[in-house]
């Protein structure tokens, strides 16, 4: 299945190497944790994960077409 990946701030560089920009082909039942591994994201930099705009845990199982956004620790206000 194909999912949409968005990496932000210091995680941006890890987008390189995706087949088509921002999209990733993964097996069914892929979890957020699997994505972190596939993209080789540094674990301590993965702080906020949104799936379709909702916070998701590492165990969250993805569906086709999901939009996954991953942020390092950031804040403001």
């Amino acid at each position, binding site marked *: 299945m194909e999912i949409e990946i*968005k990496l*932000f*701030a*210091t995680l*941006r560089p890890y987008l390189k190497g995706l087949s088509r920009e921002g999209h990733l082909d993964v097996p069914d039942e892929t979890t957020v944790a699997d994505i972190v591994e596939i993209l080789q994201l540094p674990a301590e930099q993965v*702080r*906020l994960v*949104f799936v*379709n*705009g*909702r*916070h998701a845990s590492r165990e969250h199982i993805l569906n086709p077409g999901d939009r996954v*956004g991953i*942020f*390092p*620790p*950031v*804040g*403001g*206000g």
Partner: protein
Amino acid sequence: MNKILRIDTKQKGFSYSEPETRLALMGGRALTSRIVMDEVPPTCHPLSADNKIIIAPGLLSGTTAANSGRLSIGAKSPLTGGIKESNAGGLVSQKLARLGIKAIILEDKPEGDDYSLIHITKDGVKFIPADDLVGMTNSEVITTLWERFGEKVGVACIGPAGEQRLTGASIQLADPKGNPGRAAGRGGLGAVMGSKKIKAMVIDDAGCERVKPANKEAFSGVAKKWAKLLTSHPVSGQGLPAFGTAILVNVVNEAGGMPTKNFRTGRFDKAENISGELMAELIEKRGGIIKEGCHPGCVIKCSQAYHDKNGDYLTSGFEYETIWAFGAHCLIDDLDAIAEMDRLCDDIGVDTIDTGVAIGIAMEGGLIEWGDKAGAIDLVNKIRTGDPMGKIIGNGAAFTGQALGVDRIPVVKKQALPAYDPRAVKGVGVTYATTPMGADHTAGYGVCQNILKVGGDVDALKKEGNIDVSKNLQVATAVLDAAGLCIFVAFPVLDSEDGFGMIVDMLNARYGVNLTADDVLAIGINTLETEKAFNRAAGFTKHDDRLPAMFKENLEPHNVTWDFTDEELDSTLNFG
């Protein structure tokens, strides 16, 4: 730090007095709100001689405590008609603390049209005719005053908007580089200063000593741990310095909570073009500065110097809320155009949030097209010249909406909502509705628990837990505002077991007292109670603690609505 400095703007005189004992452990917002309550008739006209401007450094300002140099300015607000504390960086807070001034009270107003400059040094206060400064932008005022009185003097001043007494007018503060990048922006306090015919105040602490804590050793011990706490937390130690607050463009957009086209949807499809990532890239490419503090002693440094295409300085203190207001809210996706409007607002002296929201309302009302950046810049420019259209925009979002016959006006207590949709970030929505300040994110930043997952994890889209989130944050924020601490210390403090204790310890060592954590929280609660009491006496009721009806509409992408009951909202700041 123990004197109250009263300045009579009518007689052009001044006097010092000892504060009453009950004010001894009040500073910053706790003190400005207390004095406004004690001395300003709640029903007075905000631009009349009865209103007063109170300027107070925080309880920890002037010490070596990191991030403790924030300033509180209070008055009855010409925008909301209620009490106002507007919080700002810059150089004034620490200098007042070193001058031993606990608060300045600007009273009365002169009869004529002649403006003054107030010069405060350790030798006293001078009124200097300021007709030469009238009409100047804030950049010009600060440049002139640094030339005249020396670089690095503290300056608080008003631009053309304050002179016109517009309800969107700010008081701008010189930052450490002499730019007017820091603002007591919200609530129209610049109009109050304009009504008192004060164009600028220069605060010079030459010849003053550093603030000496009562218990020096204990203080420096905690202050060291405190600085370490701030620099070791990933958000305040890495995220904020690297990307500033603009990083939130992508975060809030991803979370579906970025108000777009006057709060019609929660996502802006061009968010990338106004993002913090792009800002950092442009700053680097154009030779700007990625991280700067708004006052000496800030170790987080969320500010920056943003340069234009030619590599020349354009603006600083370029915040997420400003980018949102002129950006997603107006469907403008050009960071340079937004930076130009940020600069114009600082120079003309208007609040960037209320002005940006007003521009979107002007688009709503058909005055200019959605996304018309040239038209937007033109409207902001008109505030400077006194053009009637500029006066409308410069009076803020509520006024602009009324002038243009618009029915979607996102304000609470006439103050414009900031950059988080209350339906999709419910914790901060509760704050918008219930804070005595009018819609204000900084009064209880529920975005922490809702979106950033700092200090807890509470679902942004559901009601559950969000009344408490807002309540607890409003109390904690009132404490930070009393201490003179920047609200971004909340990120590490909320995530650490000892953070709040360190603030208590610093207060105790600074003043040689023995406050408990509960005593310190009581400062926050009392401040909120005082502010509510003032608003009630000014004519506010619980019906003013509501969001406008437009928020009953559904918001995409999460299909959420504003669903708190009146009872729930009324319980928020009920301390029993």
